[in-house]
């Protein structure tokens, strides 16, 4: 089985037409669906939160069959993710894309369940992102902006309260489950 890092690639990754933007509508829809799923799966497994169109992204080319996606194709697939709410453009020029392989809502649920299961009440932002408790979980290495948005959602529901510490690095959260 072919791998990209430790990510298992599906067989159709070696199908040359997969890398050419298909003109026929029905075929195109199928192709877009496969790319959307693949991007999300890959990013989730490798914990990649952003894709930059100006840099090489390993998923977008296959040296084995000497094919890679054109700029237009990349834009089409990412735009499809954005329409579905699974991604967001980070700039007006559509050069960087935030990949939400979990929606903000899903992140919020994940966090609440995590703190419940582990009996945690107060944590700093940094602890959530890179502390001992979250090591090995999906929360490890979470993109800061994504985390903040999830916490703010929890805040609105009255399940958390964000507070500032003595310095900017010391932002923390108090959970009330």
């Amino acid at each position, binding site marked *: 089985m072919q791998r990209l890092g430790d990510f298992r690639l599906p067989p159709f990754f070696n199908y*040359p037409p997969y890398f050419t933007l298909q003109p026929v509508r029905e075929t195109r829809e*199928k192709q877009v669906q496969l790319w959307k*799923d693949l991007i999300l799966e890959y990013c989730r497994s490798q914990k990649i939160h952003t894709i930059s169109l100006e840099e090489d992204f390993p998923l977008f080319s296959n040296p084995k069959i000497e094919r890679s996606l054109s700029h237009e194709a990349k834009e089409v697939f990412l735009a499809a993710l954005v329409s579905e709410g699974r991604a967001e453009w980070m700039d007006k020029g559509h050069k960087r894309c935030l990949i939400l392989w979990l929606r903000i809502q899903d992140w919020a649920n994940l966090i609440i369940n995590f703190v419940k299961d582990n009996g945690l009440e107060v944590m700093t932002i940094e602890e959530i992102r890179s502390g001992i408790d979250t090591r090995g979980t999906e929360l490890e290495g979470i993109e800061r902006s994504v985390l903040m948005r999830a916490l703010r959602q929890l805040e609105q529901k009255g399940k958390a309260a964000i507070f500032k510490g003595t310095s900017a690095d010391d932002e923390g959260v108090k959970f009330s489950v």
Partner: protein
Amino acid sequence: MSSAAAADWLPSASVTASGRPVLSAGEVERNLLPLVDLEPEENPRLGALRGCLLALTSHRLIFLHESSRSARGLPLATVVHAYPPHRRHSHNPLRSLFSSSSSSSSSQHHRIRLQISLPPARSEVVAIVVTCKADVDVFFGRLLEAIRARAWEVSPAAAPSTGAPVTEGAAPAEDIAIRMPVVGVSGILRMEQESWESAGQNLQDAFQDLNALMSKAKEMMQLAEKMRLKLLTNSSTESNSNDEEMGSKQDMQDLLLSVGIVSPVTKETAGALYHQQLSLQLADFVRIPLERAGGMMALVDVYCLFNRARGTELISPEDLLQACSLWEKVDVPVMLRKFDSGVKVIQTKTHSDEEVFARISSLAQKPDALQKGISPSDAAFTLGIAPALAKEHLLNAENKGLLCRDVSPDGFRFFVNLFNEIDSQNIYTQNPHGLYHTWITVGMA
């Protein structure tokens, strides 16, 4: 009248699949009248013909009953005398108001009387009644020319010599001409006049030569026809000819096919019927090349082939296009088709897109094609058609969802469409009997 059968006192004439008269070797069309009747004037036992197309050729007057595609041919050799066209003046103008347009008692129609001598030794008088709007005088002029020319008597092997003595005659005439002074304005004018006259004479000589050339050309075409027939009989009797021999025979055949038409339909011979007759001649001509090309040919290729066969009297692209569009109105087995890309082709009506798709699909599923896909030239080679047409077929198949494109620095290739075979919920597994599985085992090797 349902056919030309009534005039059984005339020899019958064969008609092509499209309804054009079949001409014999050396027979050339000279003029056409769209609608005539043929009335025997003296003998009531001879059947008349109504509502026929009249084709004057170098050998016959062919009366073609279009709807039944039957025809009768009156040999020009039997015409003893042709009377100039005249209109019968009716004493009763009211009668013409009540008579039908095809009735011969109408005073509006021209009548061309012919005295003919039918074998064994029967003399009859018949009249061609021209019931349509036409230039009857031009037709009559051509009729007289054709009768005078007696083309049916010319044996194919004879080399006609025309125009030889004329150039000789010009020189003495010039010598005899009084020499005028060559000084002053009158001298200059005189020189102008002389050079103009000699140019006129040269032109006349050239046309004489051209006539000689045209008859030579006719000979060449007859020779070519003989050779073609010989080839046909040879290839059918020989059972063990090797490939090389067949190849050169094929080349020969191609060459001869291109000089197949002896009597082109021209604006001159067909007048207002030009496009209609051209359209039918084209339908007849294109049948064999189409068959050999597998049922479909690019319009540009037909244009080249058709004009080559016509030799002189070339047709313009507009004429060709118009001729093709007229096919919609007649019952011919061919049609014009325009692809999405704009490419125009001529195809037989029985051509089936489905059949081509089936062949393309099976080609795309061969092991080589699963690995590397197919290019337009691969398809052209396998299907036996021109690469431009092959690309149209591939694009068509792509539109139907049978193929997918692969664009890369290596070029434009097509693969069988696997997207439909992939289960997006289960991307790591596949049906062990499916196309996707075959591709994984064979194509990714």
